[in-house]
C-alpha cells in the first residue's frame, strides 16, 4: 500500500515538474524566438506612417502616434500594434523632445514581433544608431545616454524643447520594476 502511494506521489512530482517546464517554455519561447529570429527588416520604399528601426537589436516597428502615456487602458491597447508615441511630445523626427515607449515584455499570448520592439533595448550603448522613418523620409539619431530610473522619475519630460528622442521600456525585462531610458540626439 505504502509502495503504491509512493509511486503515486513520485508520478505526481514528475507531473508537476513536467508542467512547470512546459509553463516556462510557454512563457519564454516567444522571447527566445525573438532573440534567435529577429524581425526581418525590409527596406520598404512604400511605407506610410512612422516607423522606428534600431539596427543593433534588429528592432523594427510601426509607431502609433498620439498615445496618452498616462492612460494605461489606452496605451496598453495601442502597444499591441507597435511602439507608442507620447501625446503632447514632438512627433518623431520633428524638432523637440519626442518620447516613444514600448513593451520589453508582455504576457506570452500577446507577444508579437512588433509589440515587444524594445525587448533588447538594454543592449544599446552610446553611439548606437536609431532611425525614424516618416513615410520614406529617414531621420537618424545616435544614442547619447542611457538611464534607469524609477517609474515616478518623470522629470526628464519637464523640458520638451530639447531636440532629442527618448525611448522608454520597462526594466528588467519581464517586470515593471524600473524604467530604462535611452536618449538619442539627431545626427
Amino acid at each position, binding site marked *: 500500500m505504502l509502495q503504491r502511494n*509512493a509511486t503515486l506521489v513520485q508520478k505526481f512530482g514528475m507531473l*508537476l515538474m513536467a508542467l*512547470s517546464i512546459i509553463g516556462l517554455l510557454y512563457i519564454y519561447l516567444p522571447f527566445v524566438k525573438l532573440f534567435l529570429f529577429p524581425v526581418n527588416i525590409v527596406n520598404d520604399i512604400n511605407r506610410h506612417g512612422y516607423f522606428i528601426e534600431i539596427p543593433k537589436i534588429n528592432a523594427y516597428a510601426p509607431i502609433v502616434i498620439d498615445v496618452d*502615456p498616462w492612460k*494605461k487602458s489606452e496605451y496598453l491597447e495601442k502597444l499591441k500594434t507597435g511602439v507608442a508615441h507620447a501625446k503632447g511630445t514632438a512627433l518623431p523626427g520633428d524638432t523637440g523632445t519626442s518620447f516613444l515607449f514600448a*513593451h520589453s*515584455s508582455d504576457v506570452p499570448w500577446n507577444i508579437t514581433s512588433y509589440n515587444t520592439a524594445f525587448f533588447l533595448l538594454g543592449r544599446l550603448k552610446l553611439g548606437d544608431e536609431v532611425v525614424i522613418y516618416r513615410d520614406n523620409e529617414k531621420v537618424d539619431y545616435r544614442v547619447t545616454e542611457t538611464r534607469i530610473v524609477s517609474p515616478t522619475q518623470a522629470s526628464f*519630460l519637464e523640458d520638451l524643447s530639447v531636440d532629442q528622442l527618448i525611448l522608454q*521600456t520597462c526594466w528588467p525585462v519581464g517586470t515593471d520594476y524600473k524604467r530604462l531610458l535611452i536618449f538619442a540626439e539627431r545626427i
Partner: protein
Amino acid sequence: MKVLGQKYLLMVLPATLIAFSSSAAHAEELVISGNGSGSASEVTVNSANTASITQSNDTGVNNGVFANSNTGGNNVNANNGEAVLVDTGNSQVGVTVVNDVNSSVVDSSDCCAQPTDVKVTGNGEGSINNVNIQNSSTNTVTVNQQANIVNTVNVNANTGNNAASNNFGNVTIQTGNIKVDGKILNTTVNVSKVNFSAGGLSLSALINGNGSGSANLITANFTTDTIVSVTNSSDIVNRLDIYANTGDNVANRNGGDVSIKTGDILIGAIIGNFANHNLVDIDCCDFDPGDPATPPESPRGGMVGGTTSGGGSSSGGGSSLSGSVLAAAVGGLVLPATGSSALLLATIANVIMFLMGLYLRLRSGRSPANLTLTLQFSF
C-alpha cells in the same frame, strides 16, 4: 503803407512730471521633497504687500497782457492849397497765451510678482503634503491736482480818431477793416487717463513623483486690490478785452480835397489752458499659468489638476483682482508600464512548481514518516 505789428507770446509751463515706479515683487520657491513614507508635511505662507503712491500738484498762474497798437489820432487842420491825405497804416496785433500746468504720470509697471514655484516631489508612500499660499497686495494711487489760472489780455488797436478840420478842398474819409480773431482754448483741462492691467501673480505648481497613496494639495490664493483716486480741480478765469477802432474820424469845415483813409486792424488773440493731466499706468503682468512643466495631458492619478478663477470689484476708481489656483493629486506621475510583472510571477510559480515536483520525486518512498510529511506538504 505802414504796418504796425506786435506779437505777444506768453507761455507758462510749470509742468510737474513725476514718474513713480512701484515694485511689489516677491519671489518664492517652496519645495516639499524627499520625505519618508507616512510623513506629513505642511507649508503655509501668508504675505501681504502694501504700496501707496501720492502725488499732489498745486499751481497758481496769473497772466496779464496789455497790447496797444495805435496808428490813428492824426489831426490835419488849417491847411491851404494842395489836397490833404491822411493814410494810416494797418494795425496788426497777435497775442498768444498758453498755460500748461500740472501733469502727473504714475507708472507702476514693475509690479509683476516673481514666479512662485511650488514643487511637491519625491515623497514617500502614504505621505501627506500640503502647501498653502495666501498673498494679498494693496496698491493705492492718489493724485490731487489744483490749478488756479487767471489770464487777462487787453488789446487796444486804433487807426481812427483822425481829425481834418478847416481845410480847403474836398474831404474823403475811408476807414479800414477790423478783423478780430480771439480764441480761448480750454480743451485739455482736468484730463485723467488710468490704464490698469494687473495680474501680478505667477504660480508654477508641480506635484510629481510621490509615492502611491500619497495625498498632495497645493492651495494658492492671490488677491490684488488697486485703488486709484484722481482729483483734479481747476479754477480758470480768462479776460480778453479787445478794443479796436477805425472810426471817430472828424472832418469839419474843409474847402478842398481832404482824404482820410484808416488802415485795417487785424487782431489775433489766443488763450490756451492745458491743466491737470493725469496718466496713471498700472501694468502688472497678466496672469498666465503657462503650460505645465510635465506633459500636457492629464496623467493617471492626477499630476496637476487645477481650477483658476479670477474676478474683482472696483470702487473709488480702483480695481481689484483675485485668483486662486488649486492643484491636488493623489499618487504621482507614473511612467508608462511597458513590462509585465505577470511574467515574473508566472516564472516564479513555475519554478516553485518544479521544485515541489522535484521534491516529491526524490523524497517519495523513503520512509513512512517522510512520506507522511511529504504528503502533508504536498496537499
